[in-house]
């Protein structure tokens, strides 16, 4: 065990060194300053929330703590059902060679993994502790840390279990999750509506569409089924808040520790099972090798021409390659876009004014495109950490490479937006001008979003599966930065709206809407061009000898 800790210590030191070098590099000094600013805002915000706010009502606090834990838990179940993990545990190439390929037992390999998870979870728990400080009991910090570690381990359990089971078992699991989710949604909606209607909430008080949704969701959450499902998470919340006697809180804390230890044991068992099953599968394939070889020879003999000849001539090699890659993830892409699309469309059914509902849908679409969708459509530089040398060797200008790399995610995002905007526009019959205006603004904005993510990646390169403290900090800062940019964009919009009105008043032929949309579109377009230029410069300056992850 000692050698694993020696390795972990060296690994942590190396990561800190790389982090320091990355932040202090003169080429990244501006972005590093921005990151420091974000960190200050975050810490300031956390401290302010800790020092200035009043404690929540105990019952409300209890329910709000249990909710994200429950959602995160079931998210892992749904995630695994959406897409079977390609490998049971994602190891980086370095870990593959040093840990998996090293003289370590399965339990030692997992111990290393647990340590990495623990070091990444520790700051998360610390931040949550600070944010919830006025409501926490003595057991709160321990319970938060344990709960977060438990969820991370559960993620591993879900991945391992999905990798271990047979194709038939996985299909059964998938179908079961699909049925449960669909039934839950329909039953929940009906139940919530019935409760709300019977209670007369909507008649007694005039409530908006979004409030109606919230009231319905609250009713669903109070249903007997959800209450039973939520019980373990409420127990965690009780320990966090120190609800009950010292003995009961201590007992629940012990239970949580036992559950976490059980998860770790389950992981070890599944990991060994996974290796055993992989070996068995290899043996089966070996036994069937004669059949495979004859099929393969038969198939290759027929092929004489290279595939994709015409298509690649139209799209160019880079777009073609990324499209081929995206093709492999069609199912996941449809789900990643389908759910945000449905959520974005909620205002269509709850907001009375057509125009307001349409604008709300467009804003929802933009929010998902900016914050969540980029993670699902990384068919650009972000998945090409290992191929930057190959890209740099291509006989193309940097601008052409950058455009070729960014086209696929931009087109995917635009397709998603167009589908939702067109559906919303036609469903509420808002007129083609409003639809065209929305498309004119969202299209360049999509370029801005994709370019921004790629710019951050090229300045601070990392692997998509990278875990640990560094990845956690990067994610937090990226989302904070994006939120700040959204706020800034909103502020500019507020500034631009009256300005457009006054400009339109001076030009009697042109409508205010036209001036507003044209100006907005042009402004966002300029930002998009500027950001693309920044990506080109970052790509040109990317040194394959120095800037690896």
């Amino acid at each position: 065990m000692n050698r694993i800790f020696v390795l972990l210590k060296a690994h942590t030191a190396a990561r800190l060194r790389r982090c320091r070098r990355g932040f202090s590099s003169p080429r990244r000094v501006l972005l590093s300053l921005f990151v420091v600013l974000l960190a200050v805002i975050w810490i300031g915000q956390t401290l302010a929330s800790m020092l200035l706010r009043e404690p929540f009502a105990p019952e409300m606090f209890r329910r709000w703590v249990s909710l994200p834990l429950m959602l995160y838990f079931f998210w892992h179940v749904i995630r695994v059902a959406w897409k079977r993990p390609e490998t049971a545990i994602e190891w980086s190439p370095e870990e593959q060679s040093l840990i998996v390929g090293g003289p370590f037992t399965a339990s030692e390999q997992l111990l290393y993994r647990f340590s990495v998870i623990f070091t990444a979870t520790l700051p998360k728990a610390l931040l949550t502790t600070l944010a919830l400080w006025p409501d926490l009991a003595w057991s709160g910090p321990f319970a938060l840390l344990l709960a977060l570690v438990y969820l991370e381990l559960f993620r591993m359990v879900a991945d391992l279990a999905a990798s271990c089971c047979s194709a038939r078992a996985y299909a059964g699991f998938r179908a079961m999750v699909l049925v449960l989710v669909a039934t839950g949604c329909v039953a929940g909606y009906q139940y919530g509506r019935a409760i709300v209607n019977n209670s007369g909430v909507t008649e007694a008080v005039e409530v908006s569409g979004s409030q109606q949704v919230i009231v319905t969701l609250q009713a669903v959450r109070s249903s007997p089924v959800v209450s039973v499902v939520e019980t373990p998470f409420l127990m965690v919340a009780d320990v966090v808040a120190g609800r009950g006697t010292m003995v009961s809180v201590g007992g629940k804390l012990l239970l949580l520790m036992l559950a976490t230890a059980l998860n770790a044991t389950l992981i070890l068992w599944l990991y060994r099972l996974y290796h055993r099953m992989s070996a068995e599968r290899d043996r089966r394939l070996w036994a069937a090798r004669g059949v495979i070889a004859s099929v393969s020879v038969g198939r290759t003999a027929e092929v004489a021409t290279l595939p994709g000849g015409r298509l690649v001539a139209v799209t160019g090699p880079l777009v073609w390659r990324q499209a081929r890659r995206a093709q492999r993830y069609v199912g996941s892409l449809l789900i990643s876009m389908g759910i945000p699309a449905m959520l974005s469309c909620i205002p269509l059914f709850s907001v009375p004014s057509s125009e307001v509902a349409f604008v709300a849908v467009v804003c929802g679409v933009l929010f998902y495109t900016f914050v969540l969708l980029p993670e699902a459509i990384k068919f650009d530089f972000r998945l090409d950490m290992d191929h930057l040398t190959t890209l740099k060797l291509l006989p193309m200008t940097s601008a052409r490479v950058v455009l070729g790399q960014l086209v696929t995610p931009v087109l995917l995002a635009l397709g998603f937006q167009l589908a939702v905007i067109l559906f919303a526009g036609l469903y509420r019959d808002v007129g083609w001008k409003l639809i065209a205006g929305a498309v004119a603004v969202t299209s360049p904005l999509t370029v801005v979003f994709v370019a921004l993510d790629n710019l951050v990646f090229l300045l601070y390169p990392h692997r998509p599966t990278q875990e640990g403290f560094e990845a956690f900090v990067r994610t937090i800062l990226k989302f904070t930065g994006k939120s700040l940019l959204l706020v800034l964009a909103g502020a500019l919009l507020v500034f631009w709206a009256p300005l457009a009105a006054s400009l339109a008043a001076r030009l009697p032929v042109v409508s205010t809407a036209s001036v507003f949309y044209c100006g907005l579109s042009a402004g966002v377009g300029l930002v998009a061009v500027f950001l693309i230029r920044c990506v080109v410069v970052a790509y040109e300056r990317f040194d394959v000898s120095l800037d690896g992850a």
Partner: protein
Amino acid sequence: MSPDPLISVRSFSKAYEGVPAVERVSFSVKPGEILGVIGPNGAGKTTTMRALATLIPPSDGEMTVEGFDTRCHPVEVKRRLAYIPDDPRLFPHLTVEEHLTFAAAAYGVSQPDEKAARLLEDFELSGKRKTAARDLSRGMRQKLAICSAYLYEPSALLFDEPLTGLDPIGIRTLKQSIVQRAQAGAAVMVSSHLLAMVEDICTHILLLGGGQQRFFGTVDELRLEFADHGSASLEQIFFLATGETDAARQPGSSADSAVMA
């Protein structure tokens, strides 16, 4: 009159964060020549090749391929040059034939089908056309990288440890193909620690040590400069030229004994 060099390097230097890796290296490779780049680990062989391939900018000096400067005209240089690293990073999800489609499109090869079929046949990859790159062995990945490079017939070829992972048949095929490419008028650079292979196929030698150029010239000139007899092997010359004594490296030598003690 001898032809102009296809590859020309004058006073090339490269420093990483202020630490010099290569200092004032100069050489040239004419059509038909095969330059063997040799030297101990950390001598600057890969840095020199990567700079020529426009992957890293030189700190000082000038590098040209067919007269195009690597800094001013990187796209023109890349169009004429193929760099095959020791561990080629292929696109894992693309199949063997899709890689060739990609290379043909990227380098503007017209009618690549026949050429691709011949290359796949030569490098024994015909049976793997539909196999994804991630499912290929290291040697096969190396072969695919070489096929992709040969497909667009570059005038300058840079091989960095090209025999890594290749089987004996692959080694023979590659050596033959390198000689054939040179005979067809290409300028070839081969960096390798396999001195027998270098001696076998190279017409010129660039010897680097500690980032400094120790020698550049033909194999015979190398013998004349470092060995007192014309039959000395490249391995013997290597130890003489780099200041390492062959005896000191033998197991059981006094140096080893001291360490073991």
